[in-house]
């Protein structure tokens, strides 16, 4: 049935393999993506809308959602200045060790989240290398919201850098040179010439990092302390509800996480298309 709808278009194409490759693709997507996501979308209504509403208005649920959104937003925001500085150095200067730095940036993408989790918990824990310093300053990082933010910063940093860096590379340097010749101060150059065209890329990086931060689990739970109502993230609450066999509660929170990250990435996609159109028009002119 599906192939009748999709397949008709290419019946006249002589290049072999359409039926086979298309069939495998539809089967693959159908079994591994559409089927499980359908189950997820249907499950919260299984016990009636009342159960879902009860699950969503539950105080602990709301507290965990608040923690997740707040920490993800804070981490992505704090990453912006760090990410822009690194992206700037990588794109514009050939500083000592820049090749190694470039390779290191992608590390958080590659290191498994559980490894990140136990490492950060040890590093920022009360006896850890950095934890001790913070303790001297009277600050506690591990097992508080600050720990969650730190873990999400580690995971999210590459998104900001890799969004901003290509834009900086493609930005012509002559505007900055002209501004220098006309007597602009470095701070004027940064705020008036460099930052405005970077804004869409920064917002893109923020959106990607935020979306990733909402769903992040492994790198957070070790450092978070996981105290209900205080430092419990929403993905962890999904696991807790599952362990209590409260499927309606688990799927309700899961659906919220899912919809938020889709919305976020959808907005990023729209922004990107607009950005591409803008740069395309500039090139044409």
């Amino acid at each position, binding site marked *: 049935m599906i192939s009748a709808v999709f397949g008709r278009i290419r019946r006249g194409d002589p290049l*072999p393999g359409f039926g086979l490759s298309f069939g495998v693709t539809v089967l693959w997507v159908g079994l591994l993506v559409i089927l499980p996501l359908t189950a997820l979308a249907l499950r919260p209504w299984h016990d009636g809308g009342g159960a879902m509403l009860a699950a969503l208005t539950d105080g602990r649920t709301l507290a965990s959602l608040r923690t997740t959104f707040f920490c993800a937003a804070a981490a992505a925001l704090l990453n912006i200045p760090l990410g822009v500085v690194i992206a700037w150095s990588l794109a514009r200067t050939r500083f000592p060790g820049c090749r190694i730095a470039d390779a290191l940036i992608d590390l958080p993408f590659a290191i498994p989240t559980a490894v990140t989790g136990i490492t950060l918990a040890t590093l920022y824990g009360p006896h850890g290398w950095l934890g001790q310093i913070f303790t001297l300053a009277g600050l506690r990082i591990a097992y508080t919201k600050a720990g969650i933010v730190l873990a999400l910063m580690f995971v999210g940093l590459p998104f900001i850098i*890799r969004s901003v860096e290509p834009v900086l590379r493609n930005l012509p340097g002559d505007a900055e040179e002209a501004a220098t010749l006309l007597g602009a101060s470095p701070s004027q150059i940064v705020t008036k010439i460099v930052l405005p065209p970077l804004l869409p890329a920064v917002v893109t990086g923020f959106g990607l990092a935020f979306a990733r931060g909402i769903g992040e689990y492994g790198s957070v739970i070790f450092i978070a302390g996981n105290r209900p109502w205080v430092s419990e993230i929403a993905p962890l609450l999904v696991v807790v509800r599952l362990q209590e066999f409260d499927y309606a509660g688990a799927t309700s929170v899961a659906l919220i996480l899912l919809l938020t990250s889709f919305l976020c990435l959808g907005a990023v996609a729209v922004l990107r298309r607009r950005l591409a159109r803008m740069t395309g028009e500039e090139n044409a002119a």
Partner: protein
Amino acid sequence: MSRSSSRLSVWVLSGLTWGIILVMLILPLVLIFTEALRDGISASLASFSDPDALQAIRLTVVMTILSVIINTFCGVMAAWALSRYRFTGRSALITLIELPISISPVVAGLVWLLLFGAQGWWGDIMLRLGFPVAFAAPGILLATLFVTFPYVTRTLLPLMEQQGRISEEAAMLLGAGFWQILFRVTLPEARWALLSGILLTTARAMGEFGAVSVVSGHIPGMTETMPLHIETLYNGYQTVAAFSMATLLALMAMVTVAARSVLEKQSGQKESSSVTSGAKAV
């Protein structure tokens, strides 16, 4: 004067950059190794002779190999269909393929419990058939397949789009069949992208924690993969063993990152791939 001030700003900038990288990226990396070697290398190595650790490594290797095989085969097929033909629903299919990247690992595990768990649609049937999926290896495989779903197609598709289908049409006119075209013409041209996609799939499959944690039931010596075993060891205060296993995983991850950057240099498309790598890992 402006030259010396710009040189100064370069120094300040690179100092800042290395400062951030040192604290945020290098310190954690160094800590993994020093914690693993805290009681000497022999204590670290000895932790791998534990039967639960060995079983975790074995399970991770098997699950990774199976996921890579299935998702590479299907991913290549999808890239072929999507790049060589234009049909209605094509962009919908691309969106569906990219969807799993943006889904929380916990949700990626949960969906399989909804299908095969005790309260799931088919949980009872599978149990009665003597083929449990949830809290068993098949569930772990499904969760791993889900989280590594898009990588091969994502890395192949842009390249295959760009290459067009002229070589394939020439091969077809010379009498080659589908498999011949695929293995003799298309894949050799796209081999670096394919390898890069396979490496991404491998790295993600080995290290997946949240999704597997939800479906596997966390049974030591049975359904624990390496990341899950790390959690068990860490929560049991077996720090050296936990970080030794973490070192092994981190080393494997670093090898894949290094291999990918070599590949990028080989194919000379460093620019384009670093642009997409940000989105790739979402």
